[in-house]
């Protein structure tokens, strides 16, 4: 079973980028190939995402970063004609073989554009994952709503209008509402697909702060176009190019001494 051997950890001498150098592996991706119809997008990706860290995935448009994280909770296969092959180990099970509905309760997702449910209030949006999966205990729901909104740093702004429509909030608040909604089902992993691309810098800053706060409780994987954002929020960075993983390591190391010439070219703005 030498396939199970973890990939060598990046050197930790660089400084206290993470609290725990030997952080356990949360998700282990092996030889992941994915695409749409006959067109391959991911050409065999291997990656081990550490538990309770923020991992950023960067790379130029079309490199497969979104496809990669959409494979992790199998939203990829919701697209007609999508293919996905390989192994994604999560808690000892292959995510590609378990029921996608159950997998998605453990691996939550926040999308590029805020997408609160238009017919629901703020509280109902946060509780949606619980209520739609059969939770009826009102007190427990109310408690989860408050806790999730606090974790998403939105509670103070909305606590007096929990029964107002979710779509009435500002864009940044809506995105934090979507984060609260994802957190309410207590996932072990939170995936974010360019969550700030439709937001202004202040709203972006709030979301970055909350990501740094919640990583003590769960594993965060964020796809971003914005390299400053990757540098600000993540401990590990994955650089992808044309469906392949080029470099993976500590963020501070990658942004100061990239190992690969292509990484250096990308982060210094020579292409992409």
């Amino acid at each position: 079973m030498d396939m199970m051997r973890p990939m060598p950890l990046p050197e930790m001498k660089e400084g206290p980028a993470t609290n725990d150098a030997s952080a356990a592996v949360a998700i282990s991706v092996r030889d992941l190939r994915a695409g749409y119809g006959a067109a391959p997008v991911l050409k065999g990706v291997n990656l081990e995402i550490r538990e309770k860290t923020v991992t950023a995935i960067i790379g130029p448009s079309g490199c497969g970063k979104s496809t990669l994280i959409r494979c992790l909770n199998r939203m990829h296969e919701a697209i007609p004609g999508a293919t996905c092959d390989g192994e994604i180990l999560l808690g000892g099970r292959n995510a590609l073989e378990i029921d996608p509905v159950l997998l998605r309760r453990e691996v939550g997702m926040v999308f590029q554009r805020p997408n609160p449910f238009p017919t629901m209030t703020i509280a109902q949006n946060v509780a949606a994952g619980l209520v739609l999966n059969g939770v009826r205990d009102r007190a427990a729901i109310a408690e989860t709503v408050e806790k999730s909104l606090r974790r998403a740093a939105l509670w103070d702004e909305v606590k007096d209008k929990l029964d107002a429509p979710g779509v009435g909030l500002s864009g940044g608040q809506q995105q934090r509402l979507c984060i609260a909604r994802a957190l309410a089902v207590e996932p072990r992993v939170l995936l974010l697909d360019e969550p700030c691309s439709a937001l202004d810098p202040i709203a972006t800053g709030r979301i970055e702060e909350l990501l740094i706060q919640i990583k003590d409780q769960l594993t965060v994987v964020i796809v971003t176009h914005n390299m400053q954002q990757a540098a600000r929020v993540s401990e590990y960075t994955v650089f992808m190019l044309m469906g392949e993983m080029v470099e993976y390591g500590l963020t501070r190391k990658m942004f100061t001494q990239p190992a690969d010439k292509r990484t250096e070219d990308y982060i210094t703005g020579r292409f992409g």
Partner: protein
Amino acid sequence: MNDALYARRKKVNALMFALTAVCAAVASGTLLAILGYIAWQGASSLSWAFLTNMPKPLGEHGGGIANSIVGSAKVVGLAGLMGIPVGVLAGVYLAEYGRGKYAFAVRYAADVMNGVPSIVVGLFAYALIVHPMKKFSALSGSVALAFIMVPIVLRNTEEFLRLVPGTIREAALALGVPRWKVTLFVILPTAGRGILTGALLALARVAGETAPLIFTAFGNRFADNGWLNPIATLPHTIFTYAISPYEDWHNQAWAAALILMLFVLLINVTARVWLRPSSGAPH
């Protein structure tokens, strides 16, 4: 030379503009003319007694259309109960699951059904229900109207479901919610207003249908007697009274037509107001 050309162009422009405005006036004026004429003709015979009394025996003056109003409500109501669920669920199938040849066939069939003359639908209901049961009935009238409603409701439901952004669907799926719950509790309510409006408009449309009822509901001068007996309906009563040789019945036909018009107008206005987004929603 250039000035002449310019003047000519201005003239043509003014002429064409006037032409379009006149045509628009004709289009909307028709409704006003119909409404006005029916109101003028029907108002004189309209009274509370006309709405609440049964028809008088032939030859006797007066009487009302209470049985037709109740009959229309029953026949159209039952048609809605049958046609709306089938149309909505088939629309859900087409919008959420329907791909490939079967979905194409269903969609195409619905569009063709929309164009089938309503008297043919009536004949079909006659062959399907009246003939085997050897009896005209309220039920057969409802079935005929339901057949007319299904394709309207189906296509409308599909259109409104398609307007729900895919990101809403993704958001719900990503929470680990099973597909059927996403459709039933997230997507359908999001499109709910439009679907309801479409269902109401379909009801208004069939409430005025006469041809499918001629050899199904058949008409009845007395109070209706359950679902399996002939029943009076407003459009059919208007038809019977209008082609009769009696002056009194002609006046009653006008009054009944006014009632039917007001009823259809009421449903239409209700549906339009419903469709308008509520004031508290997005900024």
